[in-house]
């Protein structure tokens, strides 16, 4: 009995400890558990500057998190401040009528000179802006500088140069590209990039039903992709430690969001050894383009009425906020009057300014949410067995799902 009472006491203690109730506190719900500590450090910085603490509340898994937010909104309990995704799923969220427009805040942000209209575009639905960036990441190629130097390679400016670099790396006994199916969401990365580089005109059409997943453009992408696998360009897709794999040199080039630069450095790559370039186009005369991932931070209609929530949000987009977040993670939120969080971001900023590259929405956000998981699983399936036989099967399944979805709309 004694032991039981003691346990009960401890348990009650745990529950009390787990019920924070500070007066000036705003809760930020998110699914980015790997940035828990870093988000909290920004939250603490907010407390010092504004007196309002941002308490981050992480969800372990993105899909669980979506389910939680959907159910919350359906039962009228929308969280005050939370993260979401751009694209089709963002429009869906806004259509619930529970998300506050932030156009006034954006006017302030743009007038202050730190933010450009282009970053705002990601969060516009029907003419109104509904979010600020939690993160803005361009999808780029991180590469192994020492290996490039050793083999006498240059950053590729054309597709042919990229391929000849890859051949040189294969000839040296190394693997050119790192790509895995770890965590189940990564399958689209090379698919979207090849699509954009080979058939930019069809890129957006994939996501409104006008381009078929078994059409000639997609087939060309799979043929090129399969061919690259056949030439030994890619690392073992079955790895479960992608960042460590990069550190171990499993692939010389790593196509990923800018945000990975911080994580790779954290895993042990010296920051100076990390280079970056934007993937070149595979067809001549195509305008410069880059894929952008925007992670929105939204507030509910009720939250926008709360002075503390808006204070916290203003801090987030301020230079201090952007610097705190950049210092902690190397993440960029589009605020150019803040310091660039790391050399990689600075270089990508410079590249984009020079080429005035057009931003394309990431496939992951652009695809209808109902199709997202099933289609990406099919792409993973191809990566695990990158033959044209599997590709045919994958394309057929993807188009069946895609056609069924658009027929329903």
């Amino acid at each position, binding site marked *: 009995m004694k032991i039981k009472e003691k346990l009960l006491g401890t348990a009650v203690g745990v529950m009390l400890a787990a019920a924070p109730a500070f007066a000036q506190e705003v809760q930020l719900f998110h699914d980015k558990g790997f940035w828990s500590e870093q988000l909290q450090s920004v939250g603490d910085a907010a407390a010092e500057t504004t007196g309002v603490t941002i308490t981050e509340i992480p969800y372990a898994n993105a899909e669980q998190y979506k389910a939680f937010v959907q159910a919350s909104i359906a*039962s009228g309990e929308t969280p005050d401040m939370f993260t979401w995704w751009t694209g089709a799923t963002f429009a869906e969220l806004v259509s*619930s009528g529970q998300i506050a427009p932030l156009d006034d805040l954006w006017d302030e942000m743009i007038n202050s000179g730190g933010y450009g209209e282009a970053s705002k575009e990601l969060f516009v639905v029907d003419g109104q802006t509904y979010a600020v960036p939690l993160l803005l990441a361009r999808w780029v190629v991180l590469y192994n500088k020492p290996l490039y130097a050793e083999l006498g390679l240059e950053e590729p400016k054309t597709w042919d140069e990229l391929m000849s670099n890859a051949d040189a790396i294969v000839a040296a006994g190394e693997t050119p590209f790192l790509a895995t199916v770890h965590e189940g969401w990564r399958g689209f990365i090379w698919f979207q990039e090849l699509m954009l580089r080979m058939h930019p005109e069809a890129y957006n059409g994939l996501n409104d039903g006008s381009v078929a997943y078994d059409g000639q453009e997609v087939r060309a992408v799979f043929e090129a992709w399969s061919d690259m696998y056949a030439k030994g360009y890619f690392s073992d897709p*079955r790895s*479960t430690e992608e960042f460590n794999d990069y550190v171990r040199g499993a692939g010389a080039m790593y196509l990923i969001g800018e945000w990975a630069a911080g994580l790779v450095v954290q895993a042990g790559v010296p920051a100076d050894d990390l280079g970056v370039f934007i993937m070149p186009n595979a067809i001549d005369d195509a305008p410069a383009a880059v894929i952008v991932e925007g992670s929105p931070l939204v507030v509910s209609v009720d939250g926008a009425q709360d002075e503390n929530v808006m204070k916290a949000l203003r801090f987030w987009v301020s230079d201090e906020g952007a610097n705190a977040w950049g210092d902690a993670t190397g993440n960029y939120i589009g605020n150019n009057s803040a310091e660039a969080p790391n050399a990689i971001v600075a270089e990508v900023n410079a590249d984009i300014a020079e080429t005035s590259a057009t931003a394309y929405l990431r496939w992951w956000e652009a695809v209808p949410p109902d199709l997202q*998981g099933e289609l990406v699983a*099919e792409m993973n399936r191809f990566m695990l067995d990158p033959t044209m036989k599997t590709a045919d099967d994958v394309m057929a399944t993807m188009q069946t799902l895609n056609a069924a979805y658009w027929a329903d709309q």
Partner: protein
Amino acid sequence: MDRAAKDKALLDRIGIDQIARNARARRRGQLGLALVFMSPALILVVGVLLVPVLFNIWLSFTKWKKFTGFGEYAGFANYERMPGNPFFNEALINTAIWVGASVVFPIALGLGMAMFFRNLRGAETFKNIIFIPRILAPTAVGVLWFYVYAPDGLLNRGLGLVSGRDVDIGWLYSDATVTPAIIATFVWQTAGLVMVLLLLGLAAIPKDPIEAAHIDGANRWQIFRYITLPLLMPTLLMVTILSVLAGFTVFDLLWVMGANYPGQRSLALAVFMYFEAFQKGSWAFGSAVAVIIGLVVLCVTWVQTVLQGRVDRMTR
């Protein structure tokens, strides 16, 4: 009939009525008391388990609108969607494979081990060793075997040593091997329990008929086939049903070990239901799949009751 007798009969009747009334009154009194004793269990079971089941059945006949909620009656629309869904069909086939495998392998292996270890020196130690995997949580077992099956994991390296060549099979990544591999893990974890339960059943079998058969010149196979097996039938039936239900509703192992397999959603109906509801947000459709799972479980339970009755009559 004279008057005295009539009176006596009347009195008797009153007496009997009175006694019955008293009993009923007492029962009512005790019913109130009994409800006090049963109320925590009843409230919990009805409120947290049975009402949700009814709610789930209702949901399966509605249409779900994102961010708005349930409500609109949809008839059998959610059920009609199932046959056309390729992932549902695959999940159904895989679940059937799981059911078949969980009848055959744990039982065959468990029975074999029970017969084998029964009269062995140090049987206790062997029993404990075989039982150990059962103590671990399925989640932990899944994590362990995930690395056993990894491309550079224990199994491939072991096969490499035996064959003298590099073995690089992605056990948990290819359509052909993923289900058998996870079934093997399931058997590893459950066969020990099956064996222990069967040993308990074997220990309860009377020795006399076996000795009698022995003296009559029956060989070991005949004794097993005609005496031990029929007497073990009730235990065997119970263990088989336990195993089928475990195999039919297996989730944790598939969730952990299938995490990197692109077709994870079609590994079994339970996983498919989870994906549809909690990942895709097709709540109403997901609840319809849950109802199908529930119907199958009810059928298995019903079959068990019928067979149990038959076995009881046979062994009586």
